[in-house]
């Protein structure tokens, strides 16, 4: 399957995502420059972590208006798969592809540590290889992961099942102590109503190989590749 990894000025996890898709999962991967106005036939698009445009104005705000994002929006609207990781999640929020916004971490500190994530959805293209209630360990590295929205909008998000990952303890308890950044309702990752766009603050691309000591992130990429390949096969039939 063809995968595209978007490169904004300031992206710094683009090669990690490329590596996982290309060398661990043996997929056809291309980089997409922020000024490109096409996705070069990509079926799965990754918005990687980093500091796009130096986090000027707000994290993800400038990237959300770049030419490639118009193509990403069209891709998402037609059911194409989009995965935003960390800064990529912030870009998806600023672009309006996912609801809500990020504030500075409640601690005001950049948090770089492993966290545990409770899986809330296992029926999405990205999570089809996971189980509801499963707990994953993944690293975070961000200063603005404090997810916010109006309480009534959070209620709608939860009722629609769009919360995909929550910060939890290693045994899956969703507690304030397990929340590294103050995110509303321990939200670590959400999807759109259709389930084809996913954003999360933790970094699955940094834990997708045994040599790194953790492979909990690989299932996300493998699930997306499997689901995307079926979509492509279905379209060609």
């Amino acid at each position, binding site marked *: 399957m063809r995968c595209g990894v978007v490169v904004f000025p300031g992206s710094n996890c683009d090669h990690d995502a490329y590596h996982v898709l290309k060398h661990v999962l043996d997929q056809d991967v291309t980089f997409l420059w922020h000024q490109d106005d096409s996705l070069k036939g990509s079926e799965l698009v990754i918005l990687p972590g980093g500091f796009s445009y130096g986090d000027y104005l707000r994290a993800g705000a400038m990237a959300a208006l770049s030419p490639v994002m118009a193509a990403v929006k069209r891709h998402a609207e037609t059911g194409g798969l989009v995965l935003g990781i960390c800064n990529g999640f912030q870009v998806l929020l600023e672009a309006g592809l996912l*609801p*809500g916004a990020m504030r*500075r971490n409640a601690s*005001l500190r950049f948090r770089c540590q492993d966290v545990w994530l409770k899986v809330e959805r296992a029926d999405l293209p990205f999570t089809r290889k996971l189980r509801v209630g499963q707990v994953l360990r993944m690293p975070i590295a961000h200063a603005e992961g404090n997810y*916010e*929205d*109006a309480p009534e909008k959070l209620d709608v998000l939860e009722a629609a099942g769009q919360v995909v990952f929550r910060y939890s303890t290693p045994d899956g308890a969703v507690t304030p102590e397990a929340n590294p950044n103050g995110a509303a309702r321990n939200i670590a990752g959400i999807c759109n109503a259709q389930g084809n766009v996913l954003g999360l603050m933790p970094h699955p691309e940094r834990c997708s190989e045994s040599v790194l000591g953790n492979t909990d992130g690989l299932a996300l990429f493998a699930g997306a590749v499997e689901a995307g390949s079926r979509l492509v096969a279905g379209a060609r039939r």
Partner: protein
Amino acid sequence: MKARVTVYPRREILDPQGKAIRDALSRVGFAGVEDVRAGKSFEISLGIDDPVEAERELRRMCEKLLANTVVEDYSVELLGAEVGVRP
């Protein structure tokens, strides 16, 4: 036309920076500070003379880019053609 746009966190949303600044002000002896909201200010020069049109354009800028209206409010202030920004 010159204008000043101010963007600040919405009242109902926790502002961790403002809270830290409030605490710091208390620590250095400003006991009367009850609340601080930390925001951003933009000085914008516009090639538009009509104040109504200028304000409309500035509000569109806020909605499109300068503010994230999920968590931020904004205000627009027209400073006129002659008023410069004093250092």
